[in-house]
């Protein structure tokens, strides 16, 4: 049985159909990377998995439990087994780094303060952020915020991790650092994960399978080696990073030759 089962998932906001009959299964210990253009419904899919949004039709099941049918208490029990890393980290800005990472532990575990401290230090060192525990989120760089977000997500030892564009807006070096951390977490903790990213380099490093969403539909979900040679024109255009092709709804501006552009 798949750990995460997305079945015929559809979601629209008014007349804007964001997801249309999406089907995806993620097996235990598997790392699925979801690619797709901006507005293709990737984040909406993650929010449906977390129960932050309710599907218009279809459903999401986590470990066999249909998310939309759970009571609030049951939903919270499922959420304790999922760690969510937000695009902009979503750290609690009134708290220090330590308090952010310790939040879930203090809420849900009757741990002594010494054990909380030890676990927080362990999580922070896993993301390479020792000695930052007293800082406030406002004092951190973008990359550090994401990493604190990772530490907060893994503090409760979840079985599933969801990463929502963890490298967007970061420089290439920091993008590589984040990619390595996700890879380390995957190997050290062996958890099931879904990662949404635009960064193809880290996507191919992290993924056991790669799925691609295009205009609300899932057009591919396969091993990275198969994905690379998938003949679908949208996938090939996305991999080339070329503006010309069927990917964009509106035609891009005409391409000028380099000399012409500099003239």
């Amino acid at each position, binding site marked *: 049985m798949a750990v995460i089962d997305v079945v015929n998932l559809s979601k629209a906001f008014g007349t804007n159909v964001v997801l249309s009959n999406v089907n995806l299964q993620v097996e235990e210990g598997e790392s699925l990377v979801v690619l797709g253009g901006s507005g293709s419904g990737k984040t909406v899919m993650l929010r449906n998995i977390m129960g932050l949004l309710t599907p218009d039709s279809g459903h999401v099941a986590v470990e066999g439990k249909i998310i939309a049918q759970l009571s609030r208490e049951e939903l919270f*029990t499922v*959420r304790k087994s999922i760690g969510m890393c937000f695009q*902009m980290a*979503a750290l609690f800005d009134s708290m220090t780094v330590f308090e952010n990472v310790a*939040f879930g532990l203090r*809420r849900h575990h009757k741990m002594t303060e010494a054990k909380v401290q030890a676990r927080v230090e362990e999580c922070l060192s896993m993301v390479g952020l020792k000695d930052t525990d007293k800082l406030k989120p406002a004092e951190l760089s973008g990359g550090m915020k994401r990493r604190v977000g990772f530490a907060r997500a893994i503090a409760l030892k979840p079985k599933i991790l969801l990463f929502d564009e963890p490298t967007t807006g970061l420089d290439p070096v920091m993008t590589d650092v984040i990619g390595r951390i996700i890879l380390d977490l995957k190997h050290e903790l062996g958890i099931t994960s879904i990662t949404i990213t635009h960064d193809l380099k880290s996507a191919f490093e992290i993924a056991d399978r790669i799925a691609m969403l295009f205009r609300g539909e899932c057009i591919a979900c396969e091993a990275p080696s198969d994905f690379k040679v998938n003949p679908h024109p949208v996938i090939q255009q996305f991999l080339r990073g070329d503006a010309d092709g069927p990917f964009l709804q509106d035609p891009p501006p005409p391409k000028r030759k380099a000399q012409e552009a500099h003239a």
Partner: protein
Amino acid sequence: MVLTVIDKVGAGVLRATDTFGDFAVLAGRAFAAIFKRPFDGKNLLNQFQSVGVNSIPVVVLTSLAVSMVFAVQLAFGFRQFQAEGLASQVEGLAVMRELAPVITGLMLSGRIGSAMAAELGTMQVTEQIDALECLATDPIHYLFVPRLLASMLVVPLLTVVSVYIGFWGGYLILVGVEGQSAYVYGNEFYKLLAFRDLRIAIYKAFVFGIIIALVGCWKGYRTQGGAEGVGQAPTSSVVTSSLWILIADFFLTKLLLV
């Protein structure tokens, strides 16, 4: 033309019903969450600090100013009838029954209600409330309950402070400026008052506290649209809670004075 008007009126009624229903559901969830665990004492103490202790200066200053102005008006008014002695009695009645709870309520809706709306609004647009949900924490329990409890307890306490300051505001004008006897003022201030009046003032303040916290949290929780939404939430919170405080004041006065 007629159909368009009916259409607009219908849409307005539906929108108002929807808004009121949403508020009622969130308020119900907040009251139900008061008795849920875990009990977050530290968060509650922080709210007592920001709602209560930090509000003392503003309540003291406004209560002093309003009671002094009111004493000036009373002294002038009663002088027309050579009945200056009544000014301190009416001052006592007005401060205890109306000025203290209403001024405290209105000032706190501006100070703490708006702060709650801004804080929760910022948390909403920066996905911090979603992060709470993802950490299996009910935002109503974590965010609404401490603010509601602090407000329910602190607004009545600050109303008592406001009554005390109101006494001295009247004293400064009627004794210090108008030359009434301090002994007479001290007796006359309480002459028309009974313990019931203090009880009414505290009941009113209790209800105002609930209005301030629930409206502030609700407006913040329902913030949409980034910086613009965060900017509108406090304004909307102050206007709505002030209006509800004045409406509630009328009905509570009618109900409790019977």
